[in-house]
């Protein structure tokens, strides 16, 4: 069941109505049943996986708290981590590891004549997201940051809460669980803000991202046929597509939860306006980047170590983050690139601040300097996205190798060379990008949902109607694309 479907609209209306009609003490049962139903719309069988993970984590949490010795606490923590991460490794990475192992072995003439054993099973939707929640829960209890949840139903809800089960945001128990215990009453302005956020998320996903996907898919799926401009344009379009796709999904998740009175973590904060890679990761997929910060980077030692170890920690964290995204070397390289970027950024910043010393602060605060840094950051991020989107590593290297080769001799005209899809589709894509840039600039000062909410009635309703129709028309006449992050 997708957020942008009629069946979801019915599900959501019915659920919200029931939620506010029921006495508080019964609400968790309703939301849990709805969450399991929501998940089962993708795959009925895999609900057992979530249920098992929930039981193991809940039990381990109680046992960690109750254990008398640190050693015993550790045993329960490890057991829980092995169970949860083991399931993730098995379902998501088994084929990747075996094929990679056999490919490497073949280079040394080992296992020749054998085929890598492969699992022919579907990846459970959202496994990467809910596993990270269960992992953070047990670690937080072990570290004494939170108390274990005694109520199994409430804990199950934390793992399976429907707005975020498929693709996040990745929530922390300390933030989400108390909200299930709080008595929530209907709030008019909260609901209208939330509905505007849902509509804006839909526009970003269905209208903008899916439209850009037409050009992106054409070029990336046939990258051997193109050089120069189409490759550059496709990489830029993908940079915007993935932002609109994922932040659009996050807005819908946050908005739908907010209608019911629950607050989820903000996942995006205009990442393409970031003036450094460090800042980019404070604005992009915030719930994931903070998770990696707290549960990988800091436990490795973070910055409070010798310099080479600090760089190593950064690199490893991003390498693992890349692998989290998908069982493919393209994602590993994407993560590795970001790790490298951050290491180089640290070295360069340190170098320049040492040279300019006293004047560095004044240089840093100039608009020109900031603009240059935003442009450089955007370029680097855009370059790394090529590896993220490419179907294979060789495709990615082929694209990066050919994107600055301009062959004007063989093309009948420059326009034809650039516009590789229907001209109307290309123009629409450009118009939508322009529209997004205007909105993103405006959002620097006021959030879109608040801005629209403050408009006069006629203007407000006209925008709602136009937005809704843009979504309907794009849904019916556009090319439907899966949410990119659903595959993770």
């Amino acid at each position, binding site marked *: 069941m997708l957020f942008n*479907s*009629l069946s979801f609209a019915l599900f959501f209306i019915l659920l919200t109505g029931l939620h*506010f009609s029921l006495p508080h003490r019964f609400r968790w049962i309703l939301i849990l049943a709805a969450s399991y139903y929501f998940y089962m719309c993708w795959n009925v069988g895999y609900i057992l996986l979530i249920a098992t993970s929930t039981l193991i984590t809940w039990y381990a949490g109680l046992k960690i708290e109750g254990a008398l010795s640190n050693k015993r606490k550790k045993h329960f923590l490890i057991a829980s981590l092995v169970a949860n991460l083991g399931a993730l490794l098995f379902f998501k990475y088994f084929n990747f590891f075996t094929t990679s192992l056999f490919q490497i072995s073949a280079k040394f003439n080992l296992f020749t004549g054998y085929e890598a054993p492969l699992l022919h099973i579907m990846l459970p939707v959202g496994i990467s997201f809910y596993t990270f929640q269960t992992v953070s829960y047990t670690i937080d209890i072990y570290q004494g940051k939170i108390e274990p949840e005694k109520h199994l139903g409430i804990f199950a809800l934390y793992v399976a809460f429907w707005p975020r089960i498929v693709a996040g945001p990745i929530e922390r128990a300390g933030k989400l669980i108390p909200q299930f215990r709080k008595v929530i009453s*209907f*709030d*008019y302005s909260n*609901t*209208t803000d939330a509905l505007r956020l849902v509509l804006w998320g839909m526009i970003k996903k269905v209208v903008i991202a899916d439209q850009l996907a037409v050009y992106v898919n054409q070029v990336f799926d046939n990258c051997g046929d193109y050089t120069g401009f189409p490759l550059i344009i496709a990489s830029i379009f993908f940079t915007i597509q993935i932002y609109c796709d994922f932040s659009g999904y996050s807005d819908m998740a946050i908005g739908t939860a907010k209608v019911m009175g629950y607050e989820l973590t903000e996942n995006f904060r205009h990442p393409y306006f970031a003036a450094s890679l460090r800042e980019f990761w404070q604005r992009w997929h915030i719930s994931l980047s903070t998770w990696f910060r707290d549960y990988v980077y800091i436990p490795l030692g973070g910055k409070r170590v010798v310099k080479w170890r600090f760089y190593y920690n950064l690199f490893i964290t991003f390498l693992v983050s890349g692998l989290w995204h998908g069982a493919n070397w393209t994602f590993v390289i994407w993560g590795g690139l970001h790790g490298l970027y951050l290491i180089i950024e640290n070295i360069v910043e340190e170098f320049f601040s040492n040279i300019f010393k006293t004047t560095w602060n004044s240089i840093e605060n100039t608009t020109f300097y900031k603009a240059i840094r935003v442009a450089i950051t955007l370029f680097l991020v855009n370059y790394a996205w090529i590896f993220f989107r490419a179907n294979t590593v060789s495709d990615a290297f082929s694209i990066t190798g050919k994107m600055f080769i301009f062959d004007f001799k063989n093309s009948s005209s420059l326009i034809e060379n650039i516009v590789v899809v229907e001209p109307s589709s290309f123009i629409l894509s450009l118009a939508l990008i322009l529209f997004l840039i205007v909105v993103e600039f405006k959002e620097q000062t006021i959030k879109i949902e608040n801005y629209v909410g403050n408009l006069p009635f006629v203007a407000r*309703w006209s925008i*709602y*109607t136009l937005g*809704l*129709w843009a979504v*309907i028309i794009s*849904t*019916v*006449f556009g090319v439907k694309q899966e949410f990119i992050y659903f595959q993770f």
Partner: protein
Amino acid sequence: MDSQSKKIILKIIIFSILNLVIMLSLLLFFSGSNRDIKFKNWETESNLLVTGENEHYDVAILGTSRGRVFSRDSNHLTMESVLGRKVVNLSKGGGGGLMPAKIHLAHFYRRGNRANHVIYFIDPWIFFCPINNENNTFFLKDEPFEIYILFDLILNGFPSQRITSYLQMIAVDDWKSISKYAAPNLDKLTLKAIDPVKLEEAREHYLGLYEPDKFEHYSKFINDINGLAKKHNSKITYIMLPILMRDFPGAKEVDAKLKKIINKERANDINNNETNSKIGKQESFQYYNLIDEMQDRHFFYDHMHFNNKGVEYFTKTYLKPIL
């Protein structure tokens, strides 16, 4: 319910009504906007561009591509000449099943058309295969947008992909070029030999597509089609056409089911109007299983589709006496 809840519910209702009105107005505006395009049955595979409005036909044919061959090339005129009757063919190539047939027949009647006799060339696989029914991607590919067909799709449980793809007919005009595609002229050919290997492959192919648990569900559409014919005073005859394959998968089940349904309908008919049988009026519901007839490759261009000769022979030998 507090005043805040009432306020938002009221606003959502007003907003929904407003947008539903806009939607209906747009759909009505686009619906039937291509009715001025007219074709003859042998010039197109489209049905909506042929049937027109307030027309009276002697015979309306329903079926799959095996029914469609009766109108391809010169076959339609041959058939009309042999029968001496005006015929409209509502069969759909690409495996039009029971669900598509119901939609087309309903629309035929809705536009004020009449037919004395509906002939449904029934195939076993349409009782088992979603790909011929709700998952059929072809049956509206060459048809212009009509709002009532949209409603029929929704009411008959077609999946959202089919509904969406039909809505796309508003903006895309692929159907115009597709609808000009008429007969592929295959029916001028003759099958060179009855090849057991190919027959086995075909059997395997169909068995692979079959979903036996759907049989009862699809069978209910026969009742709907009977109901439509009855309501519009058309006689209806089901004919299982010849196939060059013995023991076609599912044929026995379909045969038994059709006999049961037709017998039930006849019983109702007699109960409702006993004089029908007394005055010797032809039954309103008939069924003929001719699957094992005409086992001669010279009547076919492949193992299941008649060629020109097959159409002419079948029309003379079987169809004319039935009518």
